[in-house]
C-alpha cells in the first residue's frame, strides 16, 4: 500500500516534471508595427494666451498684451516652437485661466497645443510682478512656475529668464538669451566691430579705429574681445575689455591675426608671423607668448578650441590647399579633418563638442557645413543661396549665425544647427559680416 502510494506519487511528480517541460504557450506579443519616420511638424506647438491683469484699475492691461508677445517672439527665435494663433484659442481672451485647477486642458489639446504658457501680471508704482507657468497640456501638469519682480523697464530681462527656464527644461541648456553677437560692419571703406543682442536688436559700435578691423573673438567669461586692426598700418592684435577702457596691443613684428580664446582661461591662441612663417601661438590675456602650438611650414591660421580645451582645430595649407586639422594639445599630434574639396576654412567648434562648423567652396560657391569631429561625416547646411560663410555657434549649440550675400549685399543670418529656419538677423544699412556669438553670460 505504501509502495503503491509511493509509486502513484512518483508518477504524479514525473508527470508534473514532464508537464513543466512544456511551458504554457505564452503568446508572444508580436505586433505588426507601421513605421512613422517623418514628424509632420518639426516644432513643438505652443500656446501663449494673453496674460491676466491682476492689478488694480487695469494698470497692467498694456503689459498683459505686451509680455506674451515678447515671450512669443523670444521663444519663436529658438526654432523649437510653433506659436499657435491666438484666434484659434477656445477661451475668453479677456479672462484667461492661469492656474492648473482652473485650466480646461482639453481646450488646449483640442487645438493641438502640447505646451501652454500662462501669465499673470501686477503693476504698482512702476514696479511689476509677473507669474509665469509652463504646462504640459496632455499630462495636465505644471512643468515650470516662476514669479519675477522688478521695474517695468526690465520686463524683457524677466521674460528672457523665463525663456531660459523653458529651454533648460527642453534641452538641458539655458539657451542664449543673455548672449550677444559681435560682427563687422562695413562703412565708408572701414570695417568696425559692432555688438548686438542675440536677436540682432540694439546694435552698438564697439571699435572706433576708422580702419579695417577683423576677427572678433569673445573670452569665455564674455568680458573680453580680441581682434585684429590695421589702425597702425599692419594687422595688430588688440585685447580689449567690453566694459572698461582696458586695451592691450601686441608689439611684435609681422602679422597678428585670428585670435581665439582658450575656454575658461585668460589665454588665447592667435596666428603670428614674427618668425617669418604664420604659426599659431598660445598667449596670455596680456599678450605674452606662452608657447608655440603649430610647427609646420606654411600657413596655420583660424584656431578654434574644443570646449574642454584639449584639442584645437585650425586651418593649414600644409597639404597644398586650405584644410581643417585638429591638434591634440597634450600630445601635439595633428590629424586632418576635412578631405572633401579644395577649400575648407573658418572652423568653429560647437559648444557641445561633437561638431565643427566651417565654410567650404564647391562649384564656385562657398557654403556652410558641419562635420562630425570623430567620424568625419559632414552635412551641408546652406545651398543655392549665394555665398554663405563665417559660421558661429550660439552658446547652447542650437543655432548658427553666418554671413550670406543671398540678397546681394553681405549680411548676417541665423539658422538652426540643422540648417532649417534660415532668416536674416541684423537689419542695418551697409554690409555686415563675420558674426561671433558670445557666451551666454551677463557681463556686469
Amino acid at each position, binding site marked *: 500500500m505504501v509502495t503503491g502510494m509511493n509509486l502513484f506519487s512518483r508518477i504524479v511528480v514525473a508527470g508534473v516534471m514532464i508537464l513543466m517541460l512544456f511551458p504554457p504557450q505564452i503568446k508572444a506579443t*508580436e505586433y505588426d508595427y*507601421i513605421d*512613422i519616420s517623418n514628424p509632420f511638424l*518639426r516644432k513643438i506647438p505652443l500656446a501663449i494666451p494673453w496674460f491676466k491683469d491682476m492689478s488694480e484699475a487695469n494698470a497692467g492691461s498694456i503689459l498683459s498684451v505686451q509680455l506674451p508677445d515678447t515671450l512669443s517672439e523670444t521663444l519663436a527665435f529658438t526654432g523649437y516652437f510653433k506659436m499657435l494663433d491666438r484666434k484659434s484659442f477656445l477661451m475668453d481672451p479677456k479672462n484667461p485661466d492661469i492656474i492648473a485647477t482652473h485650466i480646461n486642458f482639453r481646450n488646449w489639446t483640442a487645438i*493641438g497645443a502640447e505646451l501652454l504658457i500662462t501669465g499673470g501680471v501686477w503693476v504698482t508704482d512702476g514696479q511689476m510682478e509677473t507669474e509665469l507657468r509652463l504646462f504640459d497640456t*496632455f499630462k495636465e501638469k505644471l512643468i515650470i512656475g516662476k514669479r519675477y519682480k522688478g521695474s517695468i523697464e526690465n520686463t524683457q530681462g524677466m521674460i528672457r529668464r523665463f525663456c531660459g527656464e523653458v529651454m533648460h527644461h527642453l534641452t538641458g541648456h539655458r539657451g542664449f538669451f543673455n548672449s550677444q553677437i559681435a560682427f563687422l560692419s562695413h562703412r565708408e571703406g572701414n570695417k568696425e566691430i559692432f555688438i548686438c543682442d542675440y536677436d540682432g536688436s540694439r546694435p552698438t559700435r564697439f571699435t572706433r579705429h576708422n580702419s579695417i578691423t577683423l576677427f572678433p573673438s569673445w573670452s569665455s567669461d564674455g568680458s573680453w574681445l580680441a581682434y585684429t586692426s590695421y589702425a597702425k598700418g599692419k594687422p595688430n592684435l588688440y585685447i580689449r575689455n567690453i566694459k572698461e577702457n582696458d586695451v592691450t596691443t601686441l608689439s611684435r613684428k609681422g602679422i597678428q591675426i585670428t585670435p581665439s580664446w582658450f575656454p575658461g582661461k585668460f589665454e588665447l591662441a592667435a596666428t603670428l608671423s614674427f618668425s617669418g612663417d604664420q604659426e599659431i601661438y598660445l598667449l596670455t590675456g596680456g599678450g605674452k607668448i606662452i608657447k608655440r602650438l603649430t610647427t609646420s611650414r606654411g600657413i596655420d591660421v583660424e584656431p578654434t578650441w574644443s570646449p574642454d580645451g584639449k584639442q584645437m582645430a585650425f586651418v593649414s595649407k600644409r597639404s597644398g590647399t586650405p584644410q581643417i586639422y585638429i591638434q591634440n594639445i597634450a600630445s601635439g599630434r595633428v590629424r586632418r579633418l576635412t578631405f572633401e574639396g579644395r577649400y575648407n576654412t573658418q572652423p568653429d567648434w560647437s559648444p557641445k563638442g561633437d561638431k565643427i562648423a566651417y565654410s567650404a567652396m564647391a562649384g564656385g560657391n562657398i557654403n556652410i557645413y558641419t562635420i562630425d569631429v570623430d567620424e568625419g561625416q559632414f552635412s551641408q547646411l546652406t545651398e543655392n543661396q549665394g555665398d554663405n560663410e563665417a559660421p558661429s555657434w550660439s552658446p547652447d549649440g542650437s543655432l548658427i549665425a553666418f554671413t550670406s550675400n543671398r540678397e546681394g549685399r553681405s549680411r548676417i543670418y541665423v539658422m538652426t544647427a540643422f540648417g*532649417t529656419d534660415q532668416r536674416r538677423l541684423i537689419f542695418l544699412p551697409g554690409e555686415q559680416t563675420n558674426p561671433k556669438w558670445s557666451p551666454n553670460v551677463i557681463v556686469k
Partner: protein
Amino acid sequence: MIGHSAEQKLLMLAFTVSLICHIALFSILIYAQTHRPKQRPAPEVMNVSLVSMPEYVAPSQPAKKATISSPSKKTGKPAPVKKKAAVLKKTAPKAAKKKTSLKKKTFRSEKVKKNTLKKLEQKVETSASDRISKAIDQIKSKVSREKPEKPIQPSTPKKVATGTPRGTGQVSGGKLVEIIDIYRVEIAYQVQRNWAFPDQLAEGRSDLQTLLVFKVMPNGEIKDLFFTDRSGNSHFDESAFRAVMKANPVDPHPKSVSEPYVQMGLRFTPEGIQ
C-alpha cells in the same frame, strides 16, 4: 528488495518518457522556429497605400500613358524615387558622407523650384516608360515598408472599403484583412499628422526608436495605449505618445469590419530628420 527493483524500473520508465518528451519538445521548438510566420507579408500593406494614393496607381495602367507625359505629374512622381536613391547612397560605406540639410525656408525658393523642376523634367524626359514602372515598383516596395513621407489625401474609410484594390491583385489574407490593413495605415497616417518633434531634440541621433501599441475601438476611440519600447530620449517618446493622444479619436472602423477592436502598433523613428 522487490520494491527497490520496481522503483528502478519506474525510474527507467520516467527517464525514457522524459527523454522522449525532451526530443519531442526540442523538435517542436526547432520546427516552430523555422516555420513561424514572421510577419504578415508586405504586399498587403503595399496595396493599401496605393489605394489611398490614386495618383500612384494611374501609371501602372498602360492605357494612361498621357498622364505620364503631363509636366505637373512628371515632377510629382519621380521625386520619392530620387530621395530613395539618395538614402541608399548615404548608407554606402565611405570615409566621409555627404548629407543635404533640410530647409523649410528658402529665400530664393523660386530659383530653387525652377532648378529642381528643370532637373526633374530632364530626368523624366530621358527615362522610358519601363523606367517609370520600375520607379513605381520601387515606390511600392518603399510604401510597403514605411508610411509615405509626403502627406497624402486622407481617404475616408468608406471610400477605401468600396474601392477595389488594384495593383498586384488580391492577397492571401482575404478582403477583410485587406480592409483592416488599409484602415490601419489610415490610422497611422492620422497619427503622423499629429506628430510634432523638432529636429534639434534628436541631438543628431537617427537611431532613436519608440514603439507604441494601442487598440482602436469601433467608434475610433483609442484605448490601452502603451510603450513596447522606448528610445531613451524622453522628448522623443513623449512626442510619439502625444501624437497618438492628439489623433484620438481616429476614424471609426469601416462598415465591413466587425472586430471588437483593431490592434495597432506604431514604430516612430527620426529617420526623416537630417
